[in-house]
C-alpha cells in the first residue's frame, strides 16, 4: 500500500502542476488581449492571476472547477435544476437501469452460448461483430426513433447503456461458465448430478470472479452510454446535457465540473462493485 501511495500522489501532483501551467498558457492570449484593449500593461503576476480567474477560460484552473463543483452540489437544493446532483441522478438512474438490463441479457446469452452449440456457433461471432459497430454513433437515432414510437424518458438511454454493457458480461460469463475443469465436471457426473445441479452448484459459482470483473467494465461502459444518450434529447437534464449546454454557451467551467462529476460517479460505481465482489467472494470462500 505504502509503495503505491507516494508514486500515485507524485503523479497526481505533477498533473496538477501541468494543469495550472496549461491554464496559464492557454488563457494568456485572452488576458493579454483584454489588457491591451483596456490599455493596461500586465505584469507576470497579474497575468498569471488573471489566467486563473477568467469567466470563460479556455482551460479553467483546478480551483475554479472545484469551486463550481462545490457551488452546484452543496450550495444548491437537490431538487433545483442548477444542482449537479439532480443531473447526476438523472444520468445515474439511466446508467443503473441499462446496466441491470445489460447484465441480465449478457448472462442469459452466455448461458445460451455455453449450453447450446447452435447458439455458440451463430451468435458468438455476431456478438463480437456488434461491438465493432460504433453504437454510440447511432445513439441519437435510437433515441429519436424510440421517441417517435412513444417510448421516452429513461428507457431509450438505458437501451444504449444496455447495448454497451452486455458485451463484456457475455464474454466474461462465457469464459467463467466454461472455467470448471474436466476433473470437476467428471466429479459432478460421478455424483449423478443433473444438468441443473451442475449449473447451480458448479458452473455458476465458479464463474463469479469473471462476472464481477466484467461487471466493472460494463458499469463504466454503461455510464458512457447514458451520457452520450443524453446528447440528442436537446439538453434537458443529465450530465450529458450539461456537457452539451456548456459547449453551446462556452461555459467551460460547467463542462469540466460535469466531467469531474461523471468521473466521480464512475469511480464510485466501480468501487461499489469491487466492494460487493470482495464480500461475495469471501462468503463463497474464493478470496
Amino acid at each position, binding site marked *: 500500500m505504502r509503495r503505491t501511495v507516494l508514486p500515485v500522489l507524485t503523479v497526481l501532483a505533477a498533473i496538477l502542476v501541468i494543469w495550472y501551467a496549461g491554464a496559464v498558457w492557454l488563457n494568456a492570449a485572452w488576458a493579454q488581449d483584454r489588457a491591451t484593449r483596456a490599455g493596461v500593461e500586465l505584469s507576470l503576476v497579474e497575468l498569471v492571476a488573471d489566467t486563473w480567474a477568467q469567466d470563460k477560460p479556455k482551460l479553467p484552473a483546478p480551483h475554479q472547477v472545484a469551486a463550481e463543483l462545490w457551488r452546484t452540489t452543496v450550495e444548491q437544493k437537490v431538487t433545483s435544476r442548477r444542482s449537479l446532483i439532480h443531473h447526476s441522478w438523472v444520468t445515474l438512474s439511466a446508467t443503473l437501469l441499462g446496466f441491470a438490463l445489460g447484465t441480465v441479457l449478457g448472462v442469459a446469452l452466455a448461458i445460451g452460448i455455453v449450453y447450446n452449440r*447452435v447458439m455458440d*456457433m451463430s451468435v458468438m461471432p455476431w456478438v463480437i461483430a456488434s461491438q465493432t459497430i*460504433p453504437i*454510440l454513433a447511432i445513439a*441519437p437515432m435510437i433515441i429519436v426513433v424510440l421517441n*417517435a414510437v412513444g417510448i421516452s424518458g429513461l428507457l431509450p438511454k438505458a437501451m444504449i447503456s444496455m447495448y454497451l454493457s452486455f458485451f463484456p458480461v457475455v464474454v466474461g460469463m462465457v469464459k467463467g461458465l466454461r472455467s470448471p475443469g474436466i476433473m470437476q465436471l467428471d466429479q459432478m457426473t460421478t455424483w449423478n448430478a443433473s444438468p441443473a445441479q451442475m449449473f447451480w452448484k458448479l458452473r455458476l459459482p465458479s464463474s463469479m470472479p469473471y462476472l464481477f470483473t466484467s461487471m466493472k467494465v460494463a458499469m463504466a461502459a454503461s455510464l458512457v452510454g447514458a451520457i452520450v444518450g443524453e446528447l*440528442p434529447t436537446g439538453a434537458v437534464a443529465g450530465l450529458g446535457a450539461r456537457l452539451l449546454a456548456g459547449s453551446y454557451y462556452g461555459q467551460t467551467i460547467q463542462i*469540466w465540473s460535469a466531467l469531474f462529476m461523471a468521473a466521480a460517479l464512475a469511480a464510485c460505481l466501480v468501487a461499489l462493485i469491487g466492494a460487493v465482489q470482495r464480500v461475495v467472494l469471501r462468503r463463497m470462500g474464493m478470496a
Partner: protein
Amino acid sequence: MGWIVAGFAAWAIGFWINVRLARLPRSRVTGLAVPVIFGVTLLVIWECFVRGLGVPSVILPPPSAIAVRFAASTHILWQDFVQTAIKGALTGYVLGCGAAFLMAVAVDRFSFLQRGLLPVGNFVAALPIIGMAPILVMWFGFDWQSKAAVVVVMVFFPMLVNTVQGLQASERMQRDLMRTYAASYWQTLFKLRLPAAMPFVFNGLKITTTLALIGAIVAEFFGSPIKGMGFRISTSVGQLALDLVWAEIVVAAMAGSAFYGGVALLERSLTFWHPSQRGRAS
C-alpha cells in the same frame, strides 16, 4: 400477411439449416457458414416484418431500401468516410497509440513512475473520456484536427496500460538469461521484452480500434464542418432520412470491422508463436 408468413418461414429455414450444420464436425466451412446464415436470416426477417407490419420508414426502413440508398449516395458516404474515419480516427489512432507506446517504454524504465502511473492510468481508462469531446472541439476548431485530438485522448490510456503490462510479461528466467549474455538494456528490450509484449500490445490496439471510430463520430456531434459521418447522422436524424442514417451505420460497421480485422491479421502474422494463435493455423 404474406410477408409475415414469409418472415416466419425464413426464421424456421435458417434455424433448421443452422441446427443441421452445427451437428456436423466443426470445420472452417461450418464455422463460417453458420454465422453468415444467422445474419442473412436476421436481415430477411427484418425485411419481411417491416413490410408485413407496415412499419413507416421514418422508424425503421427495410434493408432493401437501405441498400438502394447506399448505392445511390456512395459519393457522400465516401466523402464522410474520408473525413471521419481516415482524417479523424486513423490520424488520432496512430498518434495516440504511438505516443502511448513510447510513453509505456519510458515509464517502464522507472519503477517509481510505473507504480504511480499505472493506477492513475487504470482509473482514467475507466472514465467517460468521451466527455472531453466538447472541450477539445473548442480548442482545436471544428475540422478533423479536433476529432483526431479526441481520438488521441481516448486511445491513449487503454494502450498505455496494456503496453506497460506487456513489458512485464517476459519471465524472470528469460531476463536472467539475457543478463548472462551480457545484453544491454536496449538489446533486452528489442530482442526479448518487446516481442514478449506483443500480445498485450495487440490487445490494446484491438480494443482501441472501436474507441477511435466512436470518438471521431461522437466528437462531430459537438460541431463539425458540413461533412463527416457524425454530422451526417445527426442532421439526417433531424430530417428523418433514416435510410441515409442506416447507410452511414453500414459504412461505420464496415469500417470498424475492417479496421479491427486488419489489426487482427497483423497480430496473427506478428505473434504467430503465441499459444492463442497457434491452434488456428491448421
